[in-house]
């Protein structure tokens, strides 16, 4: 007799995700479905608008991955029109992107994912002195680690629990047998949960300095709007730059002093999670953090490429403009394609919404029918996983020494082989390791900016093609990016100075995808299979694997189409 476990809403993610897992007699997950249950429609809303405004619309796809869609959007427009941005603009955009990596990954680890591994209530049993000993051993460079400090934190938790109003921590899975940390490690993690919460609002000021605010800093087609004037007080100058440098230093401290050590400490208690959650074993990265323009992937800090079947000895090329490579299917999605088409490249894609799921309220979905607002993107027919693990594996397999070094170092410390990376814990670890890289690269990008300024270049925008009258009457472009959650692509078609078509294939569309026409599962679904559950009513194991992907469902299901209209011209994903 199989049991069906329904988790809806999946919390501590962005957006609305539903997971249904079918367990066998031994409570091991035998099949799983991932369903995006929200749907908005930003591409259709973009139709007919000024392409230079698109970044602001696209940015609102997601406020957790804020900035990422804005960046992909300006890249897509620049690619279509033929704009090359100035070097300063490239570096400032890189600094903003890397800042997003660091801030977003730290929040994910402590505030969205940690409670899958950390039992807050168990922290009440911790000895503050022993916790201080542990903290000083785990993160020797972190200043707040005295017995008194942990005693205060323990008191805070105790009084909070005693108050009877547990807020966001109530009705959770405390005491579940899947929690393995000793009380002291739990107490340390709770302290760092609070410290990270205080810190994340600081580093993000880098976005305020260059883009005016966060969430949703401003972007500009052709460069960046923040002019540089080293002799003025009302533009980017030495004071602003020094503040950025200071915030970058703070980021490095928290990543190297807190995040990575905590990650390694927690990981060491969960070795079995290097054997669960591997999933499909195909990984894709578009690559990013350009050093010589977005059209030269050979000079990206994150390289571009594909790994099939966990084969790290070969990296295959990926081309976003090739109609035969990236395609989307809708066999199990709440959309229909015209003329019996099965798979479409984003430049020709169609989204015709066709909700054929059960009317709410409903108890369960039918995995044999349609069950999600997420489409099924595939690369040459293969399901792909994207994200930090994909980036590190592509970098590792491409022989990139900076990436290889952090991976080898971490595996050595945990006494693991590279095979351990193909797992839930591997995914979670990869996110932390790339944050360490990102924090280091932040300072390198900052130094590049200073060096360029010293060379006398203060240009921040190319306005040659700002006026749409200078554009070709009909042009297409794409904007590739590595968002924190993985490979992101925007495709634009501009006709007579307006958006004729705009399409977005986001990281969580790849990862959260339902089955395709060949029955191949998406990354979440595949990763859940084979995981044993200790207590099916309290689905900690499902949350661990799903959270290891850092789902973003507003991104995955942002699409729609005008109803009743012919979609021949209005092509949406």
């Amino acid at each position, binding site marked *: 007799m199989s049991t069906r476990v329904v988790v809806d809403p999946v919390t501590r993610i962005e957006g609305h995700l539903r997971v249904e897992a079918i367990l066998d007699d031994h409570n091991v997950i035998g099949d799983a479905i991932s369903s995006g249950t929200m749907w908005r429609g930003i591409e259709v809303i973009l139709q007919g608008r000024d392409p230079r405004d698109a970044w602001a619309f696209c940015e609102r796809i997601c406020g957790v991955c804020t900035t990422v869609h804005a960046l992909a959007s300006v890249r897509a427009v620049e690619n279509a029109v033929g704009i090359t941005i100035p070097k300063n603009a490239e570096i400032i955009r890189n600094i903003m992107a890397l800042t997003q990596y660091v801030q977003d990954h730290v929040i994910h680890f402590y505030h969205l994912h940690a409670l899958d591994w950390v039992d807050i209530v168990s922290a009440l049993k911790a000895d503050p002195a022993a916790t201080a000993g542990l903290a000083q051993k785990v993160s020797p460079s972190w200043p707040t680690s005295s017995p008194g400090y942990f005693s205060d934190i323990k008191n805070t938790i105790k009084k909070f629990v005693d108050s009877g109003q547990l807020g966001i921590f109530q009705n959770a*899975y405390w005491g579940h047998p899947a929690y393995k940390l000793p009380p002291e490690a739990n107490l340390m993690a709770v302290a760092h949960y609070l410290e990270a919460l205080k810190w994340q609002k600081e580093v993000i000021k880098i976005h305020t300095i260059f883009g005016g605010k966060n969430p949703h800093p401003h972007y500009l087609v052709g460069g960046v709007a923040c002019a540089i004037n080293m002799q003025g007080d009302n533009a980017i100058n030495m004071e602003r730059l020094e503040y950025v440098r200071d915030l970058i230093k703070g980021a490095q401290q928290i990543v190297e002093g807190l995040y990575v050590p905590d990650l390694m400490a927690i990981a060491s208690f969960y070795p079995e999670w290097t054997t669960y959650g591997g999933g499909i074993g195909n990984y894709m990265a578009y690559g990013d953090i350009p050093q010589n323009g977005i059209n030269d992937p050979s000079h990206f800090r994150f390289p571009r490429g594909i790994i099939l079947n966990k084969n790290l000895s070969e990296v295959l090329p990926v081309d976003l403009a090739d109609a035969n490579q990236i395609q989307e299917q809708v066999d199990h999605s709440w959309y229909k394609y015209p003329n019996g088409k099965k798979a479409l490249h984003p430049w020709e894609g169609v989204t015709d919404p066709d909700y054929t799921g059960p009317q709410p309220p409903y108890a369960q979905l039918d995995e044999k029918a349609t069950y999600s607002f997420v489409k099924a993107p595939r690369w040459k027919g293969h399901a792909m996983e994207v994200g930090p693990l994909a980036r590190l594996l592509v970098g590792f397999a491409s022989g990139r020494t900076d990436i290889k070094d952090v991976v080898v170092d971490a595996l050595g410390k945990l006494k693991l082989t590279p095979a351990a990376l193909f797992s839930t814990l591997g995914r979670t670890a990869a996110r932390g390791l790339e944050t360490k890289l990102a924090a280091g690269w932040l300072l390198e990008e900052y130094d590049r900016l200073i060096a360029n300024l010293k060379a006398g270049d203060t240009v921040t925008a190319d306005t040659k093609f700002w006026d749409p009258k200078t554009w070709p009457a009909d042009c297409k472009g794409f904007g590739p990016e590595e968002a924190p959650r993985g490979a992101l692509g925007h495709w634009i078609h501009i006709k007579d100075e307006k958006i004729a078509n705009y399409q977005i294939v986001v990281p969580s569309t790849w990862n959260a995808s339902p089955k395709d026409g060949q029955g191949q599962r998406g990354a979440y679904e595949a990763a859940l299979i084979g995981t044993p559950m200790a207590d099916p009513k309290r689905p900690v194991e499902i949350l661990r694997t799903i959270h290891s992907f850092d789902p973003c469902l507003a991104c995955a299901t942002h699409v729609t189409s005008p109803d009743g209209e012919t979609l021949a011209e209005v092509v949406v994903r």
Partner: protein
Amino acid sequence: MEPSDQFTTYQVLQRHGVDRRDFLKFCTQSAAALGLSAAFVPKVVAAMETKPRIPVLWLHGLECTCCSESFIRSSHPIAQDILLNMVSLDYDDTLQAAAGFQVEEIRHKIMKDYKGQYLLAVEGNAPTKDGGVYCTVGGESFLKVLQETAADAKAIVAWGSCASNGCIQAARPNPTGAMPVRKLITGKPIINVPGCPPIAEVMTGVLTYILTFDALPELDRQGRPKMFYGQRLHDKCYRRAFFDSGQFVEAWDDEGARKGWCLYKMGCRGPTTFNSCSTFKWNCGQGWPVNSGNPCIGCAEDNFWDNGPFYQRLSNVVVPGIDSTPDQIGKTLTVIAGVGVGAHLITMAARKQASKLKTPEDGAGQAGEKE
């Protein structure tokens, strides 16, 4: 748990080892955060001493979570204080430890145990087309969840432009029939806190005000707190002097851009946008779009997505050259820009009129005059 078992904020702080001196300091800071004079501190102290932590149910509909992200960036009070000391955030998909039926259980329990006493915070809005299938939570349509949770709420805080006005998913052609809270819920006080997202301290300021005074802040005719949305950005803009003297950025990275001149000609929506950006600024007061050379896109205004394109200046005002004297230009510009934003001046006049007639208690929060 019965309401009688609740602890006041002061009791909770005491239990956290906070002494009375620190408690008073906390209250003073909270008062300052609300822009209250020292005379109000005793009122804040009394409120914190006698009121239990108010349960908050924070629902997420069609949205992008930028409001939650903004909220946790608050510098005073910080998110930790709000979560642990000020409110009891009992339901919030984004931060909640539990998942699935356990969280829905919490929502129902709070609705029952704290009937008429909990605060409903809404981030995002509800799709109304096709039976609400475009957003479901726990198998139920978000529209239904919203209506059900609103029924016994003490008041509703509509976070951000989605919940207040509709925002991006309601932009032309609004494919899912997304509607803001005020168009879906009647008979409840609704506080609209627009912005995409709202400024962090505006969000926490609204909450702290409600907690301190056990009353809604004074609202304008659009249901927005007057204390945060009473001014046009343009009126408090630090670049206003350049506008008045006719010194404008004419192209990206030009001399004006490098000198930080006015962004009006680049499409800045400051003259028609009511928000606190130019006073409180963003991210712990660090700056706002105009500070970084980016024109405002007017994200706190109703329908701002359809009032574009963003880089087109607000009206076809002929701006005098800089050979005129600054005084002349300033005078002329003020008049001409006034014509260009006439609709808003009328709105302002109407708002003034309304504030004479209505007190916040008699339901100014219900005003849905923007339909």
